[in-house]
């Protein structure tokens, strides 16, 4: 009986080495943590006990303190996004290499640097200037959004259809006419969709800014947990999850319609 030799796959050793390398990295990383087997084994019990303390959530506290705080987070996110949107539009257009090749090379790194600083670090600098509260948070969200929205706006403009631009230029239109009749009609729906998407992200970001005293619901959660008032913390968690889900759903529906049309 003859057997046909099946060529062995040579991929196996590579996968093996990769797996070993990842395990090694994981071992290095876990060595830095103060964990032992007992702590890890007790984890499910600890979490279950804490989750039990969260329920039932404190409804009265929810109405009195949590709802106003999440509304403030929404206000911070909305106004911050608006500031970012308004300021990022001209910057994003200028950062588009196909419209302004020279200026784009200057603006792009600036946007990248703004983007690289998380909102909460910006808030640490705004709080001493304008005081504790929502205004500092709004400025942090707004500034960071200029960096992210500016980049995304430039990306959208760079991937648009170039032919309308040529058509307007060929028929004697100047830079402003090109912008008004060839660029904006093409890119605006997509850019507005990006703004809405950023609003969803900013709502999550503004929810945590209270940790450094920049307004919103984050400070409420920090304080309830600090004094170990878990039923109140439960109210914060429930309200946050519900509000974010609702805002996401509304914003997502509008975004879908915008991009489809």
């Amino acid at each position, binding site marked *: 009986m003859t057997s046909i030799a099946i060529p062995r796959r040579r991929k196996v050793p590579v996968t093996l080495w990769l797996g070993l390398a*990842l395990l090694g990295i994981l071992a290095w990383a876990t060595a830095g943590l103060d964990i032992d087997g007992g702590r890890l084994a007790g984890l499910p019990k600890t979490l279950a006990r804490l989750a039990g303390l969260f329920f039932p959530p404190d409804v009265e506290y929810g109405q009195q303190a949590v709802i106003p705080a999440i509304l403030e987070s929404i*206000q911070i996110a909305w*106004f911050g996004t608006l500031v970012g949107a308004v300021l990022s539009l001209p910057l994003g257009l200028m950062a588009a290499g196909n419209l302004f090749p020279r200026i784009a090379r200057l603006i792009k790194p600036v946007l990248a640097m703004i983007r690289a600083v998380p909102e909460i670090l910006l808030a640490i600098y705004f709080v001493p*200037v*304008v005081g504790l509260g*929502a205004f500092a948070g709004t400025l942090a969200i707004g500034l960071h959004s200029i960096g992210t929205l500016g980049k995304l706006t430039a990306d959208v403009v760079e991937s648009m259809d170039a032919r309308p631009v040529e058509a307007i230029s060929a028929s004697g239109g100047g830079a402003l006419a090109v912008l008004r009749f060839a660029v904006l009609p093409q890119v605006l729906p997509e850019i507005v969709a990006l703004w809405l998407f950023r609003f969803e992200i900013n709502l*999550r970001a503004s929810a945590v800014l209270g940790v450094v005293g920049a307004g919103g619901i984050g400070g409420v959660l920090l304080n309830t947990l600090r004094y170990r008032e878990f039923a109140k913390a439960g109210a914060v968690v429930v309200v946050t999850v519900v509000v974010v889900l609702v805002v*996401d759903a509304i914003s997502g529906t509008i975004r879908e319609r915008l991009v489809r049309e």
Partner: protein
Amino acid sequence: MISRPRRPNQATRWVVSAVAAAFLALLTFWSARGIGFSFLELFGNLGKMSRLISESFPPAWNFWPRLIGPFIETVQIAVIGTLIGSLFALPLAILAARTVSPSKPVFWFHRNLMSVLRTMPDLFWAMLFASAVGFGPFAGSLALIVFTVAIVSKLTAESIESIDMNLTEAVKASGGNWFEMVRFSALPQFLPQYVSYVLYAFELNIRASTVLGLVGAGGIGMVLNTQRTTFQYDRVTMIVLFVFAMVLLIEQLSAAARRRLV
């Protein structure tokens, strides 16, 4: 003279636009009042701003040796969060992908689980875990594990939904069960994208892990919080610059890896 026929729904379109515009204007007005927006406050505080700038610059350069240890801890938190979180994200993504999920109820359950996980910001998880297991990097790692599961599973599920279903049909037609279908047809198709999402999550986690310490969940943010609350802004600036440089460096490495992959 021939008049152009008007689109029948134009009037309703105008009404809808007007209502939407009014709603957005009201929302903006309400927000501006709520946050106490004022140009006066923005530009009336130039004195405070110049004082803050003079306190923040020059940065406390000699402070950087004390940042290396905490930053390594930050990287370790991000590594654990990424690797373990991605491991959990893979089955969740498969079960939450409309086309591949074994049944409708399974799909709905995991899709909704994914949405709920995504509503909570990273620092909320960090606060919750810090009060469960105590302050320190262990809480931070747990927070980033959940955060990674939320992001990677969402992105991967979307990739799975866009794979070529003819190949999965082929496996089924030749008698393969659900596991074989996933293993031999779906997985090979979305694996490269999954790996690139894992790297993307690592970049996000590095950023996130630098601020976890603000709520006591370990890493360089713990040092940042001490300096911030004692108003030593020259040290705060040093930490921010250090984090900035390290994050950019790690992102360049990760982006290069992603480019080679995809």
